[in-house]
């Protein structure tokens, strides 16, 4: 244990001014607010009055979401469609309890080529609120340790906290088990049956060595008559395929095993 040493860095905000002569110091020029800042109803001579109101209480906490976890999880995945694969990856990872730092690292890996403003803590927090993840090892607040010294003094010493872990809940596991990317892909293709040819073209391009770029797919599809009315772009197709797990982005769009099977099926149907 060392002596407290905040003194030096804390003093950085005040510096000695040895040459300063207080008698010679002139008052700084007062800064007058502009008319717009002062407000139309400000009376002449009034001080600038930007923040005046009545005393406020602390903001009320938002009402808890009382819906069943299954419903909240489905709603979260629906609202956060672009993060779907990351959410699923977190749930898979947390089927066995994982230290929070490890989950954060896994999220970084999952989002390595898919930058997001959401980090591991944000995403896990959303899954926790939805009821898909829970923290273990943190149910009770850890108390500091009271250390008594021989001279009669006593100190609180922070204790080593039991490492918190993220673990999937029953509801989260049920959602993960029920997730069938192949079914979702079939449903999406059925919904977009008119565009099977386009989906096949996108899958084929992404199956090439090195994958495909969004620009290459846009260039290949931009003049396709099928996409003029309603106007659709390549992004619509490769995003749908990615959400169903048929494509992944790792610096280029690449086909997955599921996508390859889908492409084979679509090609067979096209030939028939």
């Amino acid at each position, binding site marked *: *244990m*060392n*002596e*407290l*040493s*905040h*003194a030096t*860095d*804390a*003093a*950085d*905000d*005040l*510096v*000695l*001014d*040895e040459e*300063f002569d*207080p008698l010679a*110091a002139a*008052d700084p020029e007062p800064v007058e607010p502009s008319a717009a800042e002062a407000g139309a109803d400000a009376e002449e001579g009034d*001080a*600038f*009055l*930007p*923040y*005046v*109101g*009545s*005393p*406020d209480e*602390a*903001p009320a906490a938002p009402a808890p979401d009382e819906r069943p976890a299954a419903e909240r999880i489905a709603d979260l995945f629906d609202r956060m469609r672009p993060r779907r694969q990351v959410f699923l990856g977190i749930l898979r990872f947390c089927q066995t309890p994982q230290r*929070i*730092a490890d989950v*954060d690292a896994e999220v970084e890996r999952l989002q390595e080529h898919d930058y997001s403003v959401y980090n591991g*803590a944000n995403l896990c927090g959303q899954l926790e609120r939805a009821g898909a993840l829970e923290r273990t090892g*943190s149910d009770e*607040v*850890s*108390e*500091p340790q*009271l*250390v008594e010294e021989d001279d*009669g*003094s*006593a*100190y*609180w*010493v*922070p*204790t080593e*906290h039991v490492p*918190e872990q993220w673990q999937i809940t029953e509801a989260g596991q049920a959602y993960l088990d029920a997730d069938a990317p192949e079914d979702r892909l079939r449903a999406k293709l059925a919904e977009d049956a008119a565009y099977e040819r386009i989906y096949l073209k996108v899958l084929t391009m992404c199956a090439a060595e090195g994958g495909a770029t969004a620009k290459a797919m846009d260039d290949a599809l931009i003049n396709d008559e099928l996409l003029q009315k309603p106007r659709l772009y390549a992004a619509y197709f490769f995003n749908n395929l990615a959400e169903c797990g048929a494509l992944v982005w790792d610096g280029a769009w690449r086909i997955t095993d599921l996508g390859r099977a889908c492409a084979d099926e679509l090609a067979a149907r096209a030939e028939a």
Partner: protein
Amino acid sequence: MEQTATEPAADEALSAEDLALIARQRAATYAFIARLYRVEVDQDLLDSLAATRYPARTGNDDVDHGYYLIARFMSNTWADTLTDLAVDYVRAFIGHGNNAYSAAYPYESVYTSEKRLMMQDARDEVLAIYRSCHLDKSASWKENEDHIAVELEFMQIMCERAAAALETGDEDAAMTAFKTQRNFLDDHLYAWAGMMTADLKKFARTDLYQGLAYLTDGFLKTDHEFLADLLDEA
């Protein structure tokens, strides 16, 4: 690292050496509290807080409770503690409203001006005091001079000056520094900080900032009493 206990009452004769040591301890506590108010907690400070022993029996209930809350917070940190603290810092000191009652605004002017405005008389007064003590705001500091962190750091520097004077045998200079401290507490810091910490207790949600509010209350009260005893005796 070890937090210093608050100073004993000056109801018994203290040697210059004892007084210098107490002044150093007071400076360290002022610096510690000022740092917590100045900006959000960073990793270095968090590590430092985790390695600190906090006095449990200082003789002041608010100080004891404040240290206990901080120690309890540090016993429950997790991977995203810094984010939690940053969010709480904003919630507690900046707030989300625009009615001047939505946070614990850490400026003396807000609590001492009728319309709760910044940059009022209090700021001019403390600036004049800093300058009379040959101090001025660092160019890197973008907040106003009546921010509680600056006022606490002013007290820290005055404590260090008193200690340095005592260590070199200049008792007159030491007494001048102690008087400056008492006047500054009476006229400024101690006069308004309690109103701000009451708001801090209302808005902060983490034990760290709750503890800071109690620690500030208790330490300023103890220090105010210590200076009164010391100077009244003198």
